[in-house]
């Protein structure tokens, strides 16, 4: 049920933004989703369809998802590489001293509304 919790949080943020901008109907919500954020797209979309029906503001809103690729940084050789392809061991110098530079984001990018 992880995705449902995420959806509730997206809706909360949209509701706040709508209030600040006096919007009455949201037609589209764009999300930036990190490749390794652990969120399953289909699951998120299913939860979205179910949850927005329960709101007035978002009842017809479509969810757009853009993926942010996961990139790992190596502290030992200062290189970056594709996380999903190589995992946590640096392909350049075999170091384990690596950390995720980007790819676990869940950001609300923009809202289309009137």
């Amino acid at each position, binding site marked *: *049920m*992880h995705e*449902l*919790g*995420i959806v509730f*949080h*997206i809706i*909360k*943020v949209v509701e*706040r*933004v709508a209030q600040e*901008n006096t*919007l*009455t109907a949201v*037609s589209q919500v764009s*999300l930036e989703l990190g490749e390794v954020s*652990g969120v399953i797209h289909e699951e998120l979309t299913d939860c979205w369809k179910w949850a927005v029906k329960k709101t007035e503001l978002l009842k017809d809103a479509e969810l757009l998802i853009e993926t942010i690729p996961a990139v790992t940084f190596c502290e030992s050789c200062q290189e970056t590489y594709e996380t999903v392809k190589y995992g*946590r061991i640096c392909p350049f110098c075999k170091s*384990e*001293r690596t*950390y*995720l530079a980007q790819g*676990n*984001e*869940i*950001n*609300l*990018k*923009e*809202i*289309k*509304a*009137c």
Partner: protein
Amino acid sequence: MDKVKIIEVKESIFADNNKEADRIREELKKEKTFLLNLMSSPGSGKTTLLMRTIEALKDELRIGVMEADIDSAVDAEKIAATGVRSIQLHTGGMCHLDAGMTEHGLKELGTKDLDLVVLENVGNLVCPAEFDTGAVKNAMILSVPEGHDKPLKYPLIFTVCDVLIINKIDVMPYFDFDLEKVREYAHMRNPNLKIFPVSAKTGEGMDAWTNWLKQQVNEWNNT
């Protein structure tokens, strides 16, 4: 019809939750109450450890417990038997607690007369790590049978925790568990992580943990 507008938001969906969590911490500070968020996989020994911790500290601190585990009526009864005040939180089947749910729990429990509140979070290592509950400190329990490579598999939780309790060290001889490797892997993710190897069953190592906790509570409540 109004004109359709595009509004750029560009913010993490956790931003509101984080603000709410900060507000909870401010409230707790004013009330002189310390909130500990306890996270782990199922069966790692949360309830056993909590009972021993309560036994060790209940004469010095006024303690309350919030249980978020989905089917832990048994756990709630065990905690109630120690004599401290406890409540069951309703997560609505959700895999994590957020700041809003924690705040409701704190209201229901009543924190005015408490020095320490322990939140037993939902049993998994992924979702609770993403949501700040408003706790003053975050602790995680890793038990020996789970293996020493957990920090590699679940890096996020190790970065958000202040304390790692390694439980069930009494069974270490029977498992291929390398304590030094855990230290190394965990510190790679979080150099400031405090690590306490304990056995909630035999009591070994428990003093170091409870003393640390007591000190944290006193610092928070009295400064």
